[in-house]
């Protein structure tokens, strides 16, 4: 009897918790909705009071203004180029190295692997001054290459792929070796297709991190036409409160945030799996 009561009490408790979490989720969404509403208001109205956000009329003018005149498109294009190439290159480098570390033997392998793992402990800030000097010496600032290359030195991908390659049974390679396949062929034809889930995890991670990166693009890309979306949107934030174009600014933020958000909604399940997958490893 007491047991049954406890179960009933637990159910009620579950309800209360769920209610609280739903309320919290509502609070979580409010800031985004607020910006969304503001982006549909005329600048002149917002100048008087942002309270007008809750009243008609709404307008699409801010979005039309973006289409007419804004660096956003160029920055968006830059971000797509940089994040895509960075992700592709990371996948290639990490897969090759992960295979090498996990499934082959060569002199000093374990020592090198430990040295690579130590790299995980080096924060970007510890190298950024010298790195900036290097790209200055090479006259490479304000190029796509300068925005893409530094991210490739991150050892996380190699670590992740090595772990994944290790989890695949060794018999597969051995069977291929009996067929006289070369190492590269084994890697490319036999093993790489088996690592698609890990590629997805690493790819999603890398793309998001690169898309949202701020410090390095901020100091490397100084010409507006080479800004990434993150840096570009930041550059419009000066004189924020005094800005006559509050609605315009909001529309720009929505416009910049929307693509990632749509991708997120579409791939949500995979992204969440990717995070969880990386966690278990």
């Amino acid at each position: 009897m007491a047991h049954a009561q406890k179960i009933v009490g637990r159910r009620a408790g579950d309800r209360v918790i769920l209610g609280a979490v739903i309320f919290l989720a509502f609070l979580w969404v409010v800031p985004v909705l607020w910006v969304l509403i503001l982006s549909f208001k005329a600048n002149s109205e917002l100048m008087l009071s942002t309270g007008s956000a809750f009243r008609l009329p709404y307008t699409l003018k801010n979005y039309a203004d973006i289409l007419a005149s804004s660096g956003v498109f160029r920055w968006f294009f830059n971000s797509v180029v940089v994040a895509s190439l960075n992700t592709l290159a990371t996948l290639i480098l990490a897969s090759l190295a992960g295979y090498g570390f996990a499934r082959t033997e060569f002199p000093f392998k374990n020592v090198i692997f430990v040295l690579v793992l130590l790299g995980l402990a080096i924060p970007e800030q510890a190298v950024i001054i010298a790195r900036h000097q290097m790209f200055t010496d090479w006259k490479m600032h304000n190029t796509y290459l300068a925005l893409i290359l530094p991210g490739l030195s991150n050892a996380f991908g190699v670590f992740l792929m090595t772990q994944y390659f290790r989890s695949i049974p060794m018999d597969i390679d051995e069977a291929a070796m009996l067929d006289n396949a070369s190492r590269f062929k084994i890697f490319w034809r036999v093993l790489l297709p088996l690592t698609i889930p890990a590629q997805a995890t690493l790819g999603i991670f890398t793309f998001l991190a690169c898309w949202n990166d701020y410090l390095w693009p901020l100091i490397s890309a100084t010409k507006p036409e080479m800004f990434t979306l993150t840096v570009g949107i930041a550059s419009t934030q000066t004189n924020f409160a005094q800005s006559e174009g509050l609605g315009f600014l909001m529309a720009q933020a929505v416009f910049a945030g929307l693509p990632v958000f749509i991708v997120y909604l579409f791939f949500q399940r995979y992204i969440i799996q990717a995070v969880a997958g990386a966690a278990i490893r």
Partner: protein
Amino acid sequence: MTATAAPATVSRPARTPGAHIGPDWRNGLFIVPFLIVYLGLLIYPLFWGMWISLQQYDMFDQSAIFAGFANFKRLMGDGIFLGTVRNTFLFVLMTVPAFVIIGLALALALNREGRTGATLRAVFFGASVLSVTIVTIIWKMMYLPGIGLISRALGVVGIAPIPFLTSQNMALPAIAATTVWWIIGLPMMLFLAALQQIPGELYEAAALDSAGRWRTLWSITLPSITRTLVVVVIYEIVAQFQLFGQTLLLTQGGPNNSSRSIVLFIYETGFRDWNLGYAAAASEILFLLMAVAAMVQYIASRRREA
């Protein structure tokens, strides 16, 4: 597995074009592309950065002279820098417990099947995909007195606007709250992944003993996810030590340096004042602090487990 395979290699004729088990220097070619980038763009600048931190740069022609530990000595007496160290520690102390407690609470509440759980998880994780620039625009529109939603809401209840971003006491907590809103999704997902690894039998046993909610949490759930707890704490300490974009974009480190972080100091010293040696020295100290903080956490967790 390898033991059974070894005879196969022996029986094979030597010098075939195909790959073979066992060491071969050519296998090292797989890691060469990454190694080049790794050494060139991480290890080399790491050591060069250390060298730069020992130089005194001329502000005008950027010529450098060796200065030994002069930059470090100067930093130790630089009130602004020491302030940034204090702010950064405070920020870590504000955010990391929040990430652990709220993240775990959300994970426990949302560790359920069905649409409701999935939707709520998506809501809390959603903000993490936004860039710091958009997050700070959103939160300016919450915080700014007069304009912001919070001051509007307070106005309805008759409370005067609070100058979150321009008050010395409020700026850093406001940035911390923004940060928690932004990336609570990651610790939540890490905890969820850990919770799903706990065998169901443990909970069934607890239910048979009619253990209450708290008792189950303390004696089953928490001990089972210690490893993830440690990972989250170390990861968040390291991540939050690098506070930069939020403070640059929300407060520019103000008011009166009350929200200036170490990384913002490095950025401003290095890339606005072009005082490279001084900035590099500050970055070495940040590196050291992060390493020590993570190490202390790690050792502490090890001891608890043992």
